[in-house]
């Protein structure tokens, strides 16, 4: 039965309520993945409707079948290419009734391709508030398809929609209406393409002629392009003419089926809110205040669940350590696997809260306004107003952030966004910053509110952002591209977010972090466990003998073993290289282990300094006692601390990010370049800071 499973494709404009409908239809059955070979998100769900086992596929939002970005190409080919696995048996076009004209453009293209289609008409209530009175029956007659009025958020009309979907599949006829007869507009060339393709489908032939992938064979493609050249066709002109004609026919259909009435006291909520939020001065002020509140809230709210998780993992480790017989397996499980998983899970609250804010702001329509007010400045440095979401998300975790850059259709702007996003201070840097700040910055409070430690922390967040802007500006001159850049973006009406959609999206982002980052972090944790648990020669045995029956044996053995382990040896090998930055081999080990994930720094430091447990206060006290062997002065001076923080601010200590950049850019060149520039930046800034401050 698997082969004959019916594919239902949900298509529609961005902001049409398509995702809300998908969530309402599928609930928790949805699976999010990627299309093979390309990095476009694929959402599918196998569900049962009216006794039929079907697969519902959510494709990226599009305005037309004239696809340009990779997202749009995927949507277009699933609708148009019969040889696609997910090829639609029926397309459900979701349309915003208050934006009918633009929404049904895509619909009429699909109708003209003679693909079975149902229109799910959403937001009729909003349309009537705008004074648009719709005659659904008349519209249905004019378009020759079934139209179901739905309310995606309140899950109304879904049963009728499901019935209509099944009816459309089973009563397939050849009586499709033609909304725009391209044959009449463009003449016999369409028939010639029909002949090449061997199918009587005028509109599919027209789109083939415009160079779109309609599932044609290579031979057919060549013949079509020769035909196009022979007739001296300019694809742009062809397409523009077709679009204008199609809209003319749409306007006729709409005038027949809608009535516009004057709405009394037609004050528009969106316009009033925009006056404030898009204000040339207050708009920015409000945005900054929202950011500030967001950070405050996220740190406050996430501290409790983080403590709970931390406590749970400590218990779990202790339990595992005692439940399994002593030995390698025990050690691997506790210090390799569990430590790795704990290091990932601890970040979930912070990342979830940050994304909750971002998704909330996105779903209300506010993020589009932030893009609007920032595009001018971001454009200047080679970015786009749309870069705002990846950059902001980068404060939670660079991995989903880099993936969200897919909505930027200009390759150069998208690439620059990807290249600089890791400079934003992600959650994993926070434990490192917190430890070092508490070590070197006094707890002074100025004017009653400004806490010096907090200020320094904020400074490092700003530093990351400024570095991202400066590097973006430099990359603007390095990366060459002839592709035009636009900022053509719909500013959707404000709305109260759909909680279901917000929650699903947060789940998705956290899942990306957990599985994408998780896999790599655990793998590296295990490698690091090996490197720090084993060393060459007989040294380990000697250490154990030496400390036998002495006080603090456990801690001292752990610390000395680490010194003579492979990791310790590497730390000593790189010591000459990091000495100019103020680091010794102990920090060297931590730098190496941080390649799994930055926060591993704290745990490694606690092992090296044989602190026993990795509670920040005890590590801090231990680090404070550490002396410089040559001078006898405290080792962790302000210079060392600042240098170390700068290193963590810039260095690419996250293998997952490297992997994601590789996948998103589909080349080894960009992750390599990114790794190099971040390493150089980290090294130089630490070097300069240490030399100046000490």
């Amino acid at each position: 039965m698997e082969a004959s499973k019916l594919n239902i494709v949900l298509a529609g404009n961005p902001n049409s309520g398509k995702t809300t409908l998908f969530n309402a239809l599928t609930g928790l059955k949805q699976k999010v993945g990627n299309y093979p070979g390309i990095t476009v998100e694929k959402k599918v769900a196998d569900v049962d409707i009216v006794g039929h086992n079907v697969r519902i596929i959510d494709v990226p939002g599009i305005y037309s079948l004239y696809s340009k970005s990779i997202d749009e190409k995927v949507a277009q080919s699933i609708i148009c290419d019969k040889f696609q696995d997910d090829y639609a048996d029926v397309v459900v076009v979701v349309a915003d009734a208050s934006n009918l004209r633009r929404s049904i453009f895509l619909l009429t293209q699909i109708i003209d391709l003679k693909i079975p289609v149902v229109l799910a008409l959403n937001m009729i209530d909003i349309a009537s508030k705008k004074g648009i009175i719709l005659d659904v029956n008349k519209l249905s007659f004019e378009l020759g398809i079934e139209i179901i009025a739905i309310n995606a958020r309140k899950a109304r009309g879904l049963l009728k929609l499901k019935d209509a979907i099944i009816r459309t599949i089973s009563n397939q006829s050849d009586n499709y209406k033609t909304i725009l007869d391209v044959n009449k507009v463009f003449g016999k060339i369409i028939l010639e393409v029909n002949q090449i393709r061997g199918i009587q489908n005028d509109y599919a032939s027209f789109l083939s002629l415009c160079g779109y992938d309609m599932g044609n064979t290579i031979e057919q493609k060549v013949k079509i392009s020769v035909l196009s050249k022979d007739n001296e066709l300019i694809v742009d002109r062809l397409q523009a003419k077709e679009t204008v004609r199609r809209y003319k026919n749409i306007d006729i259909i709409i005038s027949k089926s809608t009535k516009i009435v004057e709405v009394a006291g037609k004050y528009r909520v969106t316009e009033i809110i925009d006056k404030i939020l898009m204000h040339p001065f207050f708009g920015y002020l409000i945005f900054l205040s929202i950011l500030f509140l967001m950070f405050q809230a996220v740190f406050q709210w996430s501290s409790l669940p983080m403590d709970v998780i931390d406590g749970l993992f400590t218990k779990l480790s202790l339990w595992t350590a005692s439940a399994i017989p002593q030995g390698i397996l025990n050690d691997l499980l506790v210090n390799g696997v569990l430590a790795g998983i704990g290091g990932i899970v601890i970040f979930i609250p912070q990342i979830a809260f940050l994304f909750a804010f971002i998704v909330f702001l996105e779903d209300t329509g506010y993020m589009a306004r932030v893009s609007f007010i920032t595009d001018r400045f971001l454009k200047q440095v080679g970015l786009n107003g749309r870069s705002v979401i990846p950059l902001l998300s980068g404060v939670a975790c660079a991995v989903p952030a880099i993936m969200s850059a897919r909505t930027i259709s200009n390759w150069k702007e998208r690439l620059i966004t990807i290249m600089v996003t890791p400079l934003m201070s992600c959650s994993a840097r926070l434990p490192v910053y917190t430890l070092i700040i508490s070590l070197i910055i006094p707890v002074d409070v100025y004017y009653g509110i400004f806490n010096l430690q907090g200020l320094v922390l904020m400074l490092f967040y700003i530093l990351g952002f400024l570095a991202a802007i400066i590097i973006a500006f430099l990359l603007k001159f390095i990366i060459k591209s002839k592709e035009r850049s636009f900022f053509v973006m719909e500013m959707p009406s404000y709305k109260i977010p759909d909680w279901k959609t917000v929650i699903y999206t947060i789940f998705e982002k956290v899942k990306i972090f957990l599985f994408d980052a998780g896999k790599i972090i655990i793998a590296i944790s295990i490698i690091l466990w090996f490197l720090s648990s084993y060393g060459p020669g007989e040294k380990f045995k000697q250490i154990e003998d030496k400390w036998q029956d002495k006080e603090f044996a456990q801690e001292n053995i752990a610390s000395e073993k680490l010194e003579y382990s492979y990791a310790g040896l590497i730390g000593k090998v790189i010591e000459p290289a990091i000495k100019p930055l103020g680091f010794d081999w102990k920090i060297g080990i931590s730098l190496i282990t941080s390649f799994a994930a930055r926060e591993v720094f704290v745990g490694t430091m606690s092992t090296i300094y044989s602190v026993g447990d990795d509670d920040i206060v005890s590590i801090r006290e231990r680090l404070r006692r550490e002396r410089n062997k040559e001078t006898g002065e405290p080792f962790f001076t302000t210079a060392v601390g600042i240098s170390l923080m700068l290193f963590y601010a810039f260095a690419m200590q996250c293998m997952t990010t490297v992997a994601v950049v590789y996948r998103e850019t589909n080349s080894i060149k960009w992750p390599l370049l990114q790794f190099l520039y971040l390493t150089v930046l980290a090294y130089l800034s630490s070097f300069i800071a240490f030399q100046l401050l000490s």
Partner: protein
Amino acid sequence: MLSLSQLPVYTDAEISKINDPDLEQKLLEMGCTPGEIISVVRKAPFKGPIAIMVSSYMLSIRFSDACKIDVNIKNGS
């Protein structure tokens, strides 16, 4: 005839011509066809993007792109 970038805020005008094939293609499919009524509702500072109303929805475009769109102010507005 003037360009969209010169159109005063809240003034209805008719789209006459988009003098840039790439931009034209993008805007056409979003409903900015010749003859459509369009108005500027908001401008970002320092020649930043412009927000326009077209077919009863709001769309943003860059200032430099707005310069390439010819419009005619509607009589009586």
